[in-house]
Every structure is written in structure tokens, then in C-alpha cells.
């Protein structure tokens, strides 16, 4: 019995495929659909009626075969229906809304960091990394901050329990030390990453923050090279019309040192109530300078032969300026209402 049914279904399948070829209009489609799927006298219904004559153990298989056939018929007829109605008016309201497909965002700090990195990659810099748990030597001493140096303020540094000289790095400069210890010039690197200072969180401080620092060491590098490089970088990131201001500054690891301001990209100093620059027209953006000869010496690079410049900036600070964010803690709250705004 079941074998007969199987054969009949196979036969019906073949017929159906032939029938499909002759459908040219909706009228023919309805006709064929009726032949196969009509509840009263359709071929599928006829097959179903045969099930009751089968033995109990054959029933499930028969049901499965018939259903498969039915599904196939429906699928093919739907395809033809779609083909016939293509471009024709029908009842579907295509103005119904789209469905929400879940989409996330990278963290704003990743976005800004990547953008900054891309500019320096274009300029031929190599990206280097180092550990977040560092030695005091790499973080301070090698950078011309001997023990007791006023800039080596222990209040600001997290120390690791059980070690006398291990800390969380307070800037990403130790990455440069590690690199210089293992490479002779020319050196052209940037080192992005996290840094840590013992600050209670407030609108302008978090104990964890991100930095990106750059270093170039070669023969004949001078202070104007630093300015040119930073100018190119700043204009690439903030826009052609932004100008740069160098101010004397102090960092133990550079000599001469310069604090760098950019002209306010929003008001260019024209708005006394500007929310970005507070009316000053200038924004403090980074610290920089010529690498101190002692730092080069500490890394076995001859300061009589080579010179170099270094610069560093806070990625949060750059992001806050560019996106008008007033509270640095937002970067670490991970509130979706914040995160989803950028991408």
C-alpha cells in the first residue's frame, strides 16, 4: 500500500513540474493551484484521504511524504505568483515599517583612537605596544625622572602590592623606552594605550584613561620638524582651518618642551560664550618636545649623533573636544545612550 502511494506521489510531482511550465497568467495559476491544493477535491487532499487505509506503522511516513509534496507545491506556486505579480499592483502595503535589526557601535575611544592611528600610519609611523603593569624604571627613571624628582609624584601613581618597583604605568611613554632599547634610529613610532593615575573620578579625571604618544628619532631632527608634524596631524584631524600654537612648557623627558594649543575649531575665538573654548579661542591639546639627551643615552642612543621629538595626548581629551563631551566619566559608564551615538 505505502509503496503505491509513494509511486503516485512521484507521478504527481512529475505532472506538477509539467503543469508549472504552462502557467502564463494568474488565471492559469489559480486553476493549477485549485487542482493541487483545493481542500475539497485537490490532489493533495485525495492523497490524505488514502492515509486511513494504511497500516498504523506506515501512517507517519505517508503523512510526511504527502506534507513534503504539499510544501513543495506551495513553494513553487508562490514563486510563480511572485513572478507574475512582479511590478503589478497588489494589496501589500509596502510602506509598513522596516524591522529593527540589532546593530551595535564601537566605543568612542576606539573610534577616535583608530582615526588618530590612521593619520600616523599614513605618515609612515609604526604602532607599538607595551604592558600596562610597568617597572618604575621604564615609567620614570629612564624618562629622566630620577627617584625624588618632583614630577614623579607618588600620590598619583598606583603601586602593585608585594613589589617595590612595579606600578601601573602613568603614561604610555615607557613603550617608547622599550622600543628604543631594542632599536637604533631611524625610529618612527606611535604608542597608543591605557594609562593610570590615582585620581578620584570627576568631570575631568578618571583613574584609567587613554593616551597616544609619538616618537621620531633620526639624524638632524629639529624642533621645526615637530611643529610641522603636529600641524599636519592636527589639520588632518580637526580640519584645514585650525591653527596651532606652541607655548613653552616643561616635561622632564623633553628639552625644549612645548605645550600645544589649537585654535577653536568651532568659533575660532569669535564667540565669548563658546561652549568648546569658553571664549579663549584656544584649546590645550597636547604636550611635546625634543627628546631629552639623557633619555636617549638611557636607551643607548647617541645624542650627539641623533636627535628626536616626542609628543603625547589624551584620547579622551581629543574626543571630548571633537564631540563636545563635558564629562570624561561618560567614557567609562558604558551607558548605551552614550555608546549608541557614535559609530
Amino acid at each position, binding site marked *: 500500500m505505502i509503496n503505491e502511494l509513494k509511486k503516485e506521489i512521484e507521478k504527481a510531482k512529475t505532472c506538477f513540474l509539467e503543469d508549472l511550465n504552462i502557467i502564463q497568467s494568474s488565471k492559469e495559476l489559480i486553476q493549477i493551484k485549485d487542482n493541487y491544493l483545493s481542500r475539497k477535491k485537490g490532489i493533495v487532499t485525495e492523497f490524505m484521504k488514502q492515509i486511513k487505509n494504511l497500516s498504523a506503522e506506515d501512517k507517519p511516513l505517508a503523512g510526511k511524504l504527502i506534507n513534503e509534496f504539499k510544501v513543495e507545491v506551495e513553494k513553487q506556486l508562490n514563486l510563480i505568483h511572485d513572478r507574475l505579480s512582479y511590478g503589478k499592483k497588489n494589496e501589500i502595503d509596502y510602506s509598513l*515599517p522596516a*524591522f*529593527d*535589526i*540589532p*546593530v*551595535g*557601535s564601537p*566605543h568612542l*575611544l*576606539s573610534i577616535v583612537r*583608530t582615526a588618530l592611528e590612521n593619520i600616523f600610519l599614513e605618515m*609612515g609611523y*609604526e*604602532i607599538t605596544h607595551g*604592558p*600596562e603593569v610597568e617597572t618604575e624604571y621604564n615609567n620614570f627613571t629612564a624618562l629622566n625622572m630620577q627617584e*625624588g624628582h*618632583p614630577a614623579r609624584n607618588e600620590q598619583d601613581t*598606583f603601586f*602593585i*602590592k*608585594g613589589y617595590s618597583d612595579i606600578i*601601573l604605568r602613568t603614561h604610555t611613554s615607557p613603550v617608547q623606552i622599550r622600543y628604543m632599547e631594542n632599536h637604533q634610529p*631611524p625610529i618612527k613610532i606611535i604608542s597608543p594605550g591605557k594609562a*593610570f593615575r*590615582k585620581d578620584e573620578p570627576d568631570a575631568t579625571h578618571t*583613574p*584609567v584613561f587613554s593616551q597616544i604618544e609619538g616618537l621620531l628619532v*633620526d639624524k638632524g*631632527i*629639529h*624642533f*621645526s*620638524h615637530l*611643529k*610641522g*608634524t603636529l*600641524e599636519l596631524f592636527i589639520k588632518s584631524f580637526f580640519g584645514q582651518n585650525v591653527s596651532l*600654537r*606652541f*607655548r*613653552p*612648557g*616643561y616635561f*622632564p623627558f623633553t*628639552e*625644549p*618642551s*612645548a605645550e600645544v594649543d589649537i585654535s577653536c575649531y568651532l568659533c575660532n575665538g569669535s564667540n565669548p560664550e563658546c561652549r568648546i573654548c569658553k571664549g579663549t579661542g584656544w584649546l590645550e591639546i597636547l604636550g611635546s618636545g625634543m627628546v*631629552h*639627551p639623557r633619555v636617549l643615552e638611557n636607551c643607548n642612543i647617541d645624542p650627539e649623533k641623533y636627535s628626536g621629538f616626542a609628543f603625547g595626548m589624551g584620547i579622551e581629551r581629543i574626543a571630548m573636544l571633537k564631540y563636545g563631551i563635558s564629562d570624561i566619566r561618560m*567614557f*567609562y559608564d*558604558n*551607558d*548605551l*545612550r552614550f*555608546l*549608541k551615538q557614535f559609530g
Partner: protein
Amino acid sequence: MRINIDYLKQFLNIEDAKIISKHLSRAQKRDVWKELFASVGLETTEIIDFKGKDIFEIEITPNRPDWLSHYGVARDLHSKLPELDFHTPNITDRKFEKNKDNFTINIENKDDCGRYIACIIRNIEVKESTEGIKELLESFGLRPINNFVDVSNLIVTTIGHPIHMFDLDKLKGNEINIRRAQKGEGIGLLDGKEIELNEDFLVIADRSNPVALAGIMGGEYSGVTQETRNILIESAYFNPAVIRKAAKKIGIKSEASFRFERGADILIPPPAINMALDMIEKSESHSLDISYYDDRFPADFVPKKIQLDKIYPSAYSGIQISENIAFKILIDLGFGLDDRGDHWEVEVPSFRVDIYGKQDMVEEIIRVYGYDRLTSEIPKTTSSIVKMDVKRELNQEIRNHLTSIGFFEVMNYIFISPEEHSFFSRDRDFLEIRNPLGKDFSILRKSLFPGLLKNILLNFNHSIPGVGLFEYGNQFGIANQEIQEKEILAIGASGQYQKENWKNKQGQEFDFFIFKSLIFSLFSKLKISLILKDKHKQFFDRDCSFSVFIKGQEVGHMGILKKEILDWYKLEKPVMLAEFFVSGIIKNIETKSFQMWNKYPSYDRDLSFLMNKNLKYSQLEAAICELKPDSLENHTLFDRYQGKGIPEDKISLSMTFSYSNNQKILINEEINEMHTNFINKLIKKFDLIQR
């Protein structure tokens, strides 16, 4: 440091500078001063109006103790305003009769105390200072005390050198000893603090006891009071490192320690004490009865010399600076220059403790010449090879994929609380911060899950129905006694995955299978195949805890967060979590070579069967991989059913097996034989019941 513009004028009358036009308003002038200060490196943090006078609060960088006075600031401003006359302080040149008192100064170690001047004045009267002096001190933010203390304070703010005054009659014996304290000694300071001393402290002592902490603060007992009739004035030079260490130890930051620990001028003690004598004489309004003056100067002081090539300032700055300009600037700043043909021998003044070498000379010159005159040049340095940052590329790709399937990237602090740590690691090999911001931030994370869980909770609390998050970050630990830092990719999800809509009215909650599928989609994007193996982790639900393997190597874990931890975080909906070692992923990124695809058709065979409920699909799958014929290309589970019509202890599974051979067309009989053989092995292995 407060600068009273009016008071500054005695050294440099900046009102006469070319940059000041008579028509400027007070506010405009303030802006000019501020710019002027900034141009030498002095940052104005606040401008205060004191009785109609402008007081500038200025931030002094720690390398420039010589800026900690009106005189020092004026000297640098003068280099910027060479058209003005710079006036050195008017100090009487006194001759002293030596040692009428038979007094002695004993310096124990010249490395601790390089210079010490003591001067005794008798028959003085301690009283209030004049209104003029009191107002001046107030403008600096200092409280007037009496005419002697006020003089000390005035000397500091005027020329930058801290002097100290003792009540002579409180000192025992005719001697001052500058020595290290001994264990067991102590001192009560002017600010009321009692300090226990030891060898780390340098003290000024009389014959028997310490009477002051050198360079930091005087003792209360020996201080000047209304009753004081005879005083001893100290003007000295102490070793910065010694003062710094001691001040730090007792947590005191005084006007004196602030200067001594940055480095005082070893040549200033005589003018400082003479200036003090002039001021005291003025306030006492009669000539002083000085019975003792001695200047002990045991330090081997030699001025620092630097050889500076005349072309170096131009070469190092990248702009043309003429010899004359460079020369003039350095002279104005107090450097001595000796012309040696192609270079100068520069003598560094004693007050410039920050100068190291010729690079500093360039900074001095361009600071005055003007940073705004620097040009912009791009260095020609190029690398011999462009190094691709493989990890960055991978992380970028992962970030792109995860965000496009609905995950948000987060960034958390790296420190967590001991309790959170204990949920995710029972080992003792973790790192702890000695001086944390609080106990809740004291452990360096070994897992990134605590951060993700807090973020999930925060967003649920903002009525966000579902969250999928990921974070890149380091985990910290100790392995083989070495500190280890490893980059981790952590992923977590909970709550709603897909919102309901007009067509699908249910929406979809995150469950483990959706989570797993999303993660598998990431790895199939990376062309890496993952294998999950049951492995119990203390933080995952016992039934849903897996280790993740790539090519036999464990690279991470995933599962459903255990109920107890969920409760602790006050989370309600199940949280799915996964962590991967980034290095484990990178290792398996390969450059694939082209493979010709299989040109021969593939044939499907379906199989429905009942399996014992206590078997896991993963076990079946493992057996399939082990037993499969070479031509079995693919297998998929397309139905799973338990319930009505199926015995209690069984589940019904339906699978499709696809056969193909890339060498030839398989014929029907071949496939059937292969398939039958294969499924018979499976059936035998697991007692399957074919349907």
C-alpha cells in the same frame, strides 16, 4: 605662586613695555600680561583683584625654582622686554665684625648643608608690621604675624630664598649644629605637630636638642614671639634630596621645603640675609646691634659650563637665529658667555639648577625669541619596511563584525573588588594595588566579566530591554612568579535580542543558542573553526559551561552565568558570557591559499532516529567526526523533538548527511553503501533507534 603686578615693577616696570599702549583698559592689560607670562612658560591659573590691584596666580613648573619669586619672574620677563631696564634689588653692602659672641656653626656634612649663614641681632622689638607691609603680604595670600616673621615671608616672595629666625635666648649654648637627627629625638613644630626623628632628618640643633627641621619648618619652642629680644637669622643651602625625603616622610609642604627640595641658589644666602637686615632695620627704625655674622660655605661650588656651538641653536630649532640675538638672550637671562670662535663657553648661573646641556640653551633662546617663530617642516625619515599590525587588523575586524551583529563595545576600569574577583578566580596568583582608590578598586582583574555585568545592569536599570556587549582589555596575573598580562576579548549578552514587530509579534530573547550562533558567525568570518567542550567553570551554570578550542588549543570559555553570581549583581535575566585570548585567535589566522571547489554534485541522505536522552549532541557529533567516511561532506541537524509519541527516555533527531567526492561522481549504490555502513556504526555506538 602669586605675582603682584605692582610689586613686580620695582624690578621691571612692565607698564612701560612697548606691548602696552596707554589706551588699554584694565581687562585688556590683564590679557597682555597673561600672554606675556605664557610666552616665557608661566601659566596663569587665576587673576585676582586685591584692593584694585591685579594679582596673578601662576603655575610654576617644578624645574624652575628660580621663578618662585617676583625677582625671578621679572628677570625672565626682561629677556622678553629688552627695551626696559631691569633693576636688581637695592641691598646695603654691610661689613660685619666677626664673632663678638664667640658663637660657632658646626656643619656635620657638607653634602647635607652646603652653606650656612647665621647672624645675631640683639635688642630688637617684636611688633606689628606697617600697614603697607601687611597689605603687601595679604596680596600674596599670606597672613601678617609680626615684623620679623613678615620679613621672612617678604624675602621669600621677593627674591625667592627662605630664611629662618630663632629666638636666640631659647637656644642652649653658643652654637648651631647642622646634623642628622638621632633616633629617639623629637621636635614640636611651629604648626603644632610633634615629630619623632631619626637619621633621615636633617636638623638644626643647639647644644642639646633639635630646634628646627632644616629647610622645612622651625620648632615651636625656639620660634620668634612677642617676648623675643635677641634673634638669630639663618640663611642657608640644603641638599634638595635630603629635604624632599624628610618633607615627604612627615607629609609637610612648607614655603621653605617647596623651594629647597626643588633646588635653592647656593649663592643667594648672603644677599637674602642682607636684604632681611635692611627690612628689619627699617621696621625697627634704628641701626641694628649685630653681634655675630658668619658665612660657612663648605660646598665645592663650581659654576656649570656648557660648550655651545654658535650654529647649534639654529640647527636644533630649525629656524635661523643670528649669533647676536642668541648671545643677547642668554646674557639677559643671567648666563655668562665666553666667545671661543666657533662656539661659546656658557657659564650657567647658580640659580638655574634645571640646566643640563646645550639643548637647554636652545630652549632658553627660542623661548625668548618666540615659539611662534618656529616654522613647520616634515621630517624625511622613512622606514625600510611597512610593518602591518596584525593584531590591530584582527581587532578591527572583530570589532566590525560584532558591532554589525548588534554588540556594543565597552571600556571598563581594570580594577575590581576582592569579592567580584573571588567569583571568577579562586587562584592566589592575582595582582593587587597597594594604594587603591578604595577596596572596591583594589584587584587587577583576571576576568573582564565583572565589568560587563555592571554595564549590563546599568543599562537594564535604564529600561533598556536587552544588551549585547564586548570589551577588549588585559587580564592580569602571575605565572611562574612572573607578572602576566594577556589581552582578552570578552562578550556578554542578556535580555532582548530582537524587538517584536508587526510581523513577528514575539520578538526574541537572547538565549545560549543565539549567543553561540552569533559567536560562531564571528569565527566563521575569521575562517576559524571552533570546538566547544564541556568543562566545568566555577562561574558558569553547571549545565552550560564550555571551553573553546581552536585546533586542539584552549583559547577561551563560554557559558551561562551561574545563578548565585547573577543574584549578587542583582540581575534577573540569564546572562550569556564568553572570553577569548586574543593571542589564541591570532595564532590561528592563516593566509589561505586558493582551493578549487568540488565540481561534483553532492547527494543528501536523511536519517531520523531516537537517541537516549542522557546523551549529548556534542557526543554524537564527536562520533560523527570520528567515524565518518571521507566522502561525507557535511551534516546538519534539521529536527529535534521530544514529547508525544516518543518514549520518555528518548529524543527524536533528524539529520541530513551530504555526500560528495571531489575526484569523481558518486553513484547511488556507492552512496547507499557508504551511508548504511556509517549509520550502522553510529547506531551501534549509541544504541540509536532508526525511524
